[in-house]
């Protein structure tokens, strides 16, 4: 059923009995053209674009838990394309353009809200760095505005502008940035992919790969073997573990990233705001809770929970930026396991094994990339060549030295 005002009205008169499950809970067939490992936003988007753009509909998405139970359900829902480096900007801008048309495309309300993303600067040097970033964005056709202190004050009068250590001097504003509803993105892609014939197989963990020499020919799962001409891995957070099943070592460490939600309050923060002197970002959900986060904990972890040192650090960042939130209570916090890559940028590429494709290394920026990652990964799988927007995200860039290091900190994953 296509969702519209008519379906709502029809169901209202029919006692809400005409609704059908948004996707089939499929049992796996013996073989597919493509199997995608990982039923998160990226995996489901990949399956959707394989079917929609490339006409490959004999596709299964296998997920060890329920779809969206990993990082797709553990992020802070921010979407933006305010990157600096040439390999990154076209990719993230394509993602932003897909976000802008996503709800019409999927016939699903993903609650994409372009409420703006503002990165604050606190010194002259940081202003210059943001001016450079803004110029790089504008040269690529991305919207960016460098605004001064008084313009920030008119948007966010409650910030601590005269903080003795980190006074706020202005910010780099991307008005098209904002937030989306993370679960709805997963469900929307799942429903749209399912309608094109994609099988979504939940509670189906990959335990090994079927191979014929150096060629991957399918996956072993807890629901039995599934043969496939091509297998795509899209399991950020666990990429090393799944790749290890195929005998691959990756330039990735798994780290835990925490996020927090406060109790609900009346509308306070209009868009997404980031603190430039520490690592702290915050927005307000439509329910009223403040959604915020900061640094990763900084040590290898698969635990999906972090430690108090980072909780304290994040809250200190929040207090330095907006002391008004000091009396609020944190309602929930959680941790997600992120693929920290060696240069802070992702990998969308063929693997060294024929028939095996890799979408990994998203650090803590995978959510905003969901549509474009699916788009480009589907292209790579379908055509055996990189998409122009993800051509820089090669696995062998660590061999050739073509790193994409936005922060310039080198091969130290916990600093990206």
């Amino acid at each position, binding site marked *: 059923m296509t969702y519209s005002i008519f379906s709502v009205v029809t169901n209202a008169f029919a006692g809400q009995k005409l609704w059908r499950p948004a996707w089939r809970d499929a049992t796996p067939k013996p073989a597919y053209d493509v199997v995608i490992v990982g039923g998160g936003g990226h995996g489901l988007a990949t399956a959707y674009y394989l079917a929609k753009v490339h006409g490959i509909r004999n596709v299964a998405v296998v997920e060890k838990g329920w779809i969206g139970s990993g990082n797709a359900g553990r992020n802070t829902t921010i979407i933006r394309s305010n990157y600096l480096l040439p390999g990154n900007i076209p990719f993230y801008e394509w993602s932003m353009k897909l976000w802008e048309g996503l709800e019409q495309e999927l016939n699903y309300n993903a609650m994409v809200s372009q409420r703006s993303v503002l990165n604050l600067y606190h010194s002259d040097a940081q202003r210059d760095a943001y001016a450079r970033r803004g110029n790089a964005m504008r040269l690529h056709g991305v919207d960016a505005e460098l605004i001064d202190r008084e313009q920030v004050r008119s948007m966010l009068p409650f910030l601590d502008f005269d903080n003795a250590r980190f006074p706020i001097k202005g910010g780099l504003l991307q008005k098209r940035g904002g937030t989306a509803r993370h679960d709805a993105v997963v469900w929307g892609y799942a429903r749209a992919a399912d309608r094109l014939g994609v099988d979504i197989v939940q509670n189906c963990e990959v335990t090994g790969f079927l191979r014929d020499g150096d060629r991957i020919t399918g996956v072993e799962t807890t629901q039995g073997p599934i043969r496939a001409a091509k297998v795509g891995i899209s399991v950020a957070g*666990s990429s*090393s*573990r799944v790749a*290890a099943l195929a005998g691959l*070592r*990756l*330039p*990735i*460490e*798994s780290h835990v990233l925490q996020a927090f939600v406060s109790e609900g309050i009346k509308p306070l923060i209009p868009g997404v705001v980031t603190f430039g002197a520490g690592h702290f970002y915050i927005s307000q959900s439509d329910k009223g809770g403040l959604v915020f986060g900061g640094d990763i904990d*900084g*040590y*290898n*972890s*698969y*635990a999906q929970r972090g*430690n108090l*040192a980072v909780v304290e650090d994040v809250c200190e960042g929040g207090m330095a930026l907006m002391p008004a939130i000091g009396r609020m209570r944190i309602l929930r916090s959680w941790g997600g396991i992120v693929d920290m890559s*060696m240069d802070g940028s992702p990998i969308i590429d063929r693997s060294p094994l024929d028939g095996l494709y890799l979408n990994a290394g998203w650090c803590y920026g995978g959510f905003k990339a969901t549509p474009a990652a699916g788009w480009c990964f589907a292209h790579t799988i379908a055509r055996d060549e990189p998409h122009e927007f993800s051509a820089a995200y090669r696995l062998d860039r*660590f*061999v050739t030295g073509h790193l994409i290091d936005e922060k310039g900190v080198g*091969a*130290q*994953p*916990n600093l990206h």
Partner: protein
Amino acid sequence: MRIPCPYCGSRDVQEFSYLGDANLRRPDHEAPEAAFHDYVYLRDNPAGPHRELWYHGSGCRNWLVVTRNTVTHDIAGARFAKEPT
């Protein structure tokens, strides 16, 4: 998380800085480039016991090798990195 520093005793993780996998060994300077690529970029990244380097910067300033489970955060032990294994 608390780390049992062999010099200072059990201390909060906030006193330490993390470097990473303690099993990595720098290749000989005449080793092929591929060996340096492995050393600099590739990681086992295990889910389970992990030997890792921590620096007790707010304490005794020793480098430690800590054996920690990455799934549970349980720490099995810590010793000075300068001690021979």
